[in-house]
């Protein structure tokens, strides 16, 4: 069973007054998230990521289309017992201490008092806030708030965790901690669906990604497949004792040549011209230092697709 199924989802905001214009934020969005995977939901600001997540949780209603979470229709309250959610830039009840805060969310999830008593200290320790358990949230830093937010999303040990921009506004150390936490959740068999526009994070930890632009899905699939399909397969050749611009075959085949003293970096468009160029370098008495296939990055895929979409 898929953890999330979205089919032909459209969301149009109908204005209150007839003279105002309706705006369609999502058009025919379809995606599937398999159980046990980390799914990165990519898109520029305003692409419709948060709207999609709100529809998943029943905070907004879909205009048309099918949305299911863990086999139940979106908005079905009982299914929420198996789902954890952290919104973007969350504001929490800042008059509560970390311990009270997690206890409150545990009670909302209908957990027993005994389970909450053992779960809360364990979670606080896991997100590195056990020292701050009696501190009110108003005295927390942004990074600490993000961590307590993640803890509230996990307090009831959900199967599916939905995180809206969990790394935004965090310093590199904070981002690493969140990445590690997401990876550890997958290791426990949880499904993590998170939105972001930080591509390096997605590339590092996601199994699958979906790219959303202007309310439409551009593509979806496994990270390596997307990169493989769309990425430019250029090759970098580094050699010593040769001036690239002076070897006609090299000059003809290379996309770019960088010369620094006797060392030359030759960027080739692909595998097909590699043998020819290597022979020319050898003939020019050059010494081969390295040949590195340049795998395309997710960033290239994202930019390429976003540009194509206009």
């Amino acid at each position, binding site marked *: 069973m898929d953890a999330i199924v979205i089919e032909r989802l459209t969301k149009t905001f109908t204005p209150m007054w007839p003279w105002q214009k309706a705006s369609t934020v999502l058009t025919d969005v379809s995606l599937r998230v398999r159980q046990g995977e980390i799914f990165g939901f990519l898109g520029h600001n305003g692409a419709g990521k948060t709207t999609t997540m709100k529809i998943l949780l029943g905070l907004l209603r879909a205009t048309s289309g099918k949305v299911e979470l863990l086999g139940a229709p979106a908005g079905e309250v*009982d299914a*929420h*017992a198996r789902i954890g959610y*952290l919104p973007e830039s*969350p*504001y929490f*009840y800042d008059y509560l201490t970390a311990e*009270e805060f997690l206890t409150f969310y545990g*009670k*909302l999830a209908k957990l027993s008092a005994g389970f909450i008593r053992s779960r809360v200290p364990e979670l606080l320790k896991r997100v590195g806030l056990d020292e701050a358990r009696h501190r009110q949230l108003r005295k927390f830093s942004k990074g600490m708030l993000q961590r307590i937010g993640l803890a509230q999303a996990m307090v009831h040990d959900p199967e599916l965790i939905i995180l809206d921009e969990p790394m935004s506004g965090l310093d590199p150390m904070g981002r690493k901690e969140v990445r590690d936490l997401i990876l550890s959740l997958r290791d426990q068999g949880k499904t993590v669906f998170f939105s972001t526009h930080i591509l390096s994070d997605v590339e590092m930890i996601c199994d699958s990604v979906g790219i959303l632009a202007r309310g439409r899905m551009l593509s979806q699939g496994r990270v390596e497949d997307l990169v493989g399909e769309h990425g430019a397969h250029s090759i970098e050749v580094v050699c010593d004792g040769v001036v690239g611009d002076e070897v006609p075959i090299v000059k003809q085949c290379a996309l770019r040549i960088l010369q620094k003293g006797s060392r030359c970096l030759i960027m080739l468009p692909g595998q097909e011209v590699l043998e020819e160029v290597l022979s020319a370098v050898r003939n020019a008495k050059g010494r081969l230092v390295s040949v590195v296939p340049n795998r395309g990055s997710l960033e290239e895929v994202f930019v390429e697709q976003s540009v194509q979409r206009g």
Partner: protein
Amino acid sequence: MQSVMAVAKNTFRETIRDKILYNLVFFALLLMGSSVLLGTLTIGEHARIVNDLGLAAINLVAVIIAIFLGVGLVSREIERRTIYTILARPITRIQFVLGRYIGLVGIVTVNVVIMLAMFLATIWLSGFPIHAALFQAVQLILVESLVVMAIALLFSTFSSATLSASMTIGLYIVGHLTSDLKVIAEKSASQVAKAVMTGLYYMCPNLEVLNIKGQAASGMSLAIKTQVLATGYGVLYAGLLLLAACLIFQRREF
């Protein structure tokens, strides 16, 4: 029920940690204290002045809490976006609205009880008799607060806190003038005006039914049947408002 009580308890805690409440109770204490001083300056009816000011202070503070905390019950959660993480839990929107309302009812009740204790202490220290009518008046003040809280909550499900406060204060004032609406309807020459005023008379809460402060200050008790009917009317009216608030909140998108 666990979810409703969790929300109610959190609402209670939120308000308790809000220092404004202490100021209000202090204000009530000051008003009651001043009634003793004021009474010494007047000839006769000293007890009545103490009772009058004490009941007025309790009523004022209860209504202020009901309006100004009531209007933030839902709208503040939406503005601060805390509603997102709450509704992402296995809790229905109706349970959330009820939880918030029950939490505030708890706050108002605790405050009214504290003020009543201070009031009774003031009367006792002044050496005056404590009439049963005073308890009746305070009980109806509590019922009036239930209605006012429900009005504030209803408005807060679809408008901002500021707008909700203005509308609630407006309806509270109209609620004490509903008998005038009936008089206007009777005296009106235009059939349309008559129909509108009569409609408003039946739609607006009749809060004067819950106001027996004047007679209670003089020690005149209310018949039990009237007390029960007035309480029933207030509770039913608050219930209907709560129902409307739940229906509106069910349809809202965030």
